[in-house]
């Protein structure tokens, strides 16, 4: 019997190995998410309905504009932010908890794969899974007359990239936060609502009470949504969106750092206490 050694150290370490792990995990995550037709149908429907309901609520209240821009456009970008939070909470953030629930967490922690790469892969797969949701929401935006006003395509592109980065960074923080609790599903259900509020997705952060506005400053997605709104709805230039992008970068870096440190600490603590596969 011939048996191939799977470990080809030291060549498979480093960037190439990480890259392969990210792609393989993203593919697996995507396949798992799309295994049931009902998942494919319902994922775009939730943000779509939220967009429609929020728009009709503003119409019922007789409000045509929010923060100086039309309601449809304001909400369109807000719902994009909401979809990113869905990705951070239910995909990136729930990665390790899903592995635990499926009984594969011990194998994962014993494998030479980087935990960070695995979480990034799940996050990437989750973002791809949610792209149809972005598309249908954008279509509804066009249908109800979302009025875009773009001055700098570069500012739009940078803001969009930061929106994705902030979702991944937040997901890393949540992954560490969820995993030791063994109540990840409960926590995910609870935390998504404050995140949606603090992100200013449905109402502008400028209309928050002071204490709530201060809290929202710590959320990277809130800054990213501000930047995307400014660049796509108010013709904001790179200079205009720079403060929001900077705020997003700082908050994202903090989330990423805390997340990575937290995950390492969680793994160490879980292995020592023998609680890795308990839930």
């Amino acid at each position, binding site marked *: 019997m011939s048996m191939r050694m799977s470990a080809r150290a030291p060549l498979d370490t480093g960037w190439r190995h990480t890259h392969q792990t990210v792609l393989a995990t993203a593919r697996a995550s995507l396949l798992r998410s799309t295994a049931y037709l*009902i998942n494919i149908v319902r994922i775009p429907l*939730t943000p779509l309905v939220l967009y429609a309901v929020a728009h*009709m*609520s503003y119409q019922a209240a007789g409000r045509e504009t929010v923060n100086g821009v039309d309601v449809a456009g304001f909400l369109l970008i807000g719902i994009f932010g909401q979809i990113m939070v869905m990705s951070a909470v239910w995909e990136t953030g729930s990665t390790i908890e899903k592995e635990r629930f499926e009984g594969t967490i011990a194998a994962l922690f014993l494998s030479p794969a980087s935990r960070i790469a695995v979480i990034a892969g799940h996050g990437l797969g989750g973002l791809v899974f949610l792209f149809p949701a972005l598309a249908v929401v954008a279509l509804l935006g066009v249908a109800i007359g979302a009025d875009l006003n773009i001055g700098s395509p570069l500012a739009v592109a940078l803001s969009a990239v930061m929106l994705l980065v902030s979702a991944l960074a937040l997901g890393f923080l949540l992954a560490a936060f969820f995993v030791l609790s063994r109540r990840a599903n409960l926590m995910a*259900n609870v935390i998504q609502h404050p995140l949606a509020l603090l992100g200013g997705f449905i*109402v502008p952060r400028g209309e928050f009470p002071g204490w709530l506005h201060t809290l929202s400053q710590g959320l990277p997605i809130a800054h990213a949504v501000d930047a995307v709104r400014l660049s796509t709805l108010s013709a904001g230039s790179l200079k205009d969106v720079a403060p929001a992008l900077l705020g997003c970068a700082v908050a994202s870096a903090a989330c990423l750092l805390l997340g990575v440190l937290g995950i390492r600490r969680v793994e160490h603590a879980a292995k020592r206490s023998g609680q890795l596969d308990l839930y």
Partner: protein
Amino acid sequence: MQPSAQASSISTRVRTKPASRARTEAQATIASWRAMTSERLYHMGAAGGAATWLVLPLMSIIVFSIVYGTDSYLFRYFVVAQAGNTLVMNTVFWVGEILDRERAKGTLEPLFLAPCSRYAWLSGFILAGVLETVIVSTAVLVISYLAFGVRFDPNIPVLVVAVLLFAVALWGMGLIFSGIGLLIKKSNPLANLVYSGLMLLGGLYFPVSELPDLLRYPARALPVGYGLQAISDAALYDAGFGDIWADLLPLAGFAAGLPVAGALMFTWMERKVRVRGELDLY
């Protein structure tokens, strides 16, 4: 050597007196209610329970106080609708997922083999959700009163009738969702899908009368909009039976028809699953 337990079969029909049978059913209902309540409290913990119950309504109230303004009739309607929404969520996410959740835990088959009717333990499980519903609804109304200055002028008899009719209609809907969840084995995605539809058509955020024509017609084919409007008018404006008959009448129709339809559909779908031998597959 200890004698082994006497062999028995649940398929054996034992003649029991009706009073004894009713007592057994009641005991099964109470026992399953206690077991499910204990399990929920154990899993969530006090802090988790409070957060789960309060965060969503509180966040929604803050957002819509900004959208509508706290002194508008839309905000007052929204607050009462959110209290009613706890019943809707209970129907969709709790009642609708009960059987599939038991299947995932591996306890569905033993439940079906238990020597009592399935309505006994099912009712106990549903009652466990009602406790949470009452807590959240009360919290929503108290927070709105204290923090947002919403004032109520309830017509108690009308309110009680409206809430009861609404709960019975939703219970019937819940039975249908539960049966479908059992059949398709994906009750949580189904619950999310159904709830999205109710968010749009159920008048959870504004009265159904504010919907565009295209959506208002399908909304009128559901009990939720009628129920929330009737409860809102009775709770906020002292509306009498004569004032809200246009909502109460269709709601009464749903309350009469949906439980029957639900029980029939549930039985049909359950039989289908058992014939396929899929009771413990997921």
